[in-house]
């Protein structure tokens, strides 16, 4: 195992949990990023402004990372563009069909012990691992 960062990952994870907790206890909302984005791409009247504010915060946080922690954008692996396009289409389509992603199902739903989120999380980790396994074998890594 190389590149293992348990402390930073735990701390970062707790910040994610803190952010999601604030959304829940203050705004009463689930911090599921794919759902928040989808609600901006297909707006519903009266349910859009908080989403835009959250996404603006996400981008502002990204800019802060660029200044204070530029290593956050040391991607390490950047797939070729055609692969990234297919990946993006799958992520966009799959998160809508499955009603959530790593944040909505993986963090918020698993914490609530929601059966749907537990199954969804196990499923996407499994197919993600399967994809990486197949890709590494096909490309001989």
């Amino acid at each position, binding site marked *: *195992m190389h590149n*293992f960062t*348990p402390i*930073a*990952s735990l701390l*970062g*994870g707790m910040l*994610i*949990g803190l*952010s999601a*907790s604030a959304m*829940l*206890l*203050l*705004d*009463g*909302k*689930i911090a599921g*990023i794919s759902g928040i*984005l989808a609600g901006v791409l297909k707006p519903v009247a009266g349910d859009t*402004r908080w989403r835009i*504010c*959250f996404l*603006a*915060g*996400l*981008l*502002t*946080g*990204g800019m*802060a990372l*660029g200044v204070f922690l530029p290593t*956050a*954008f040391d*991607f390490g692996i*950047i*797939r070729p*563009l055609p692969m990234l396009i*297919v*990946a*993006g289409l799958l992520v*966009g389509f*799959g*998160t809508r069909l*499955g*009603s959530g*992603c790593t*944040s909505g199902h993986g963090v*918020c739903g698993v*914490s*609530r012990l929601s059966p749907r989120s537990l*199954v*969804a*999380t196990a*499923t*996407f980790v499994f197919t993600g691992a399967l*994809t*990486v*396994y197949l*890709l590494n074998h096909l490309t001989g890594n």
Partner: protein
Amino acid sequence: MKALLTSFASGLVFALGLGISGMTQPIKVIGFLDFFGAWDASLAFVMAGAIAVYFVAYRIRATMPAPLLAPKFAIPTRNDLDVKLILGAAIFGAGWGLGGFCPGPALTSLASGAMPVFVFVVAMGLGMYLHSWVTEIRATASGLAISPANTTQDA
């Protein structure tokens, strides 16, 4: 207004968490998903940290009649498992493993100005539109199929 500020601040903290934890680096994501290779367990710690905090928040929520800055909680209530959920999660996972980005880190990484991230995010948005088009087409098709029944009902 306060609720919108909370949304903005939460988005900001969320992005910092993603960056500090390593989620914005596809090498860490793909390393985590590489169970049969040089497995990098870091992302399990991200989930553990996030879930530990949110688990407590969710229990605090149970004691509150309403959120502090909004009239009511908007929390999913469904408990049934269906094909859409599992198929959707399976498709998402394949894309996650393929690209190394999930939605939050991809949006956060737009701030890096890296062109491949931009390409991924545009494709992700198109994938979301594709889903709503497919849903609409299927709804229209099933609407046509049951239209005779509707007609008799209306009559």
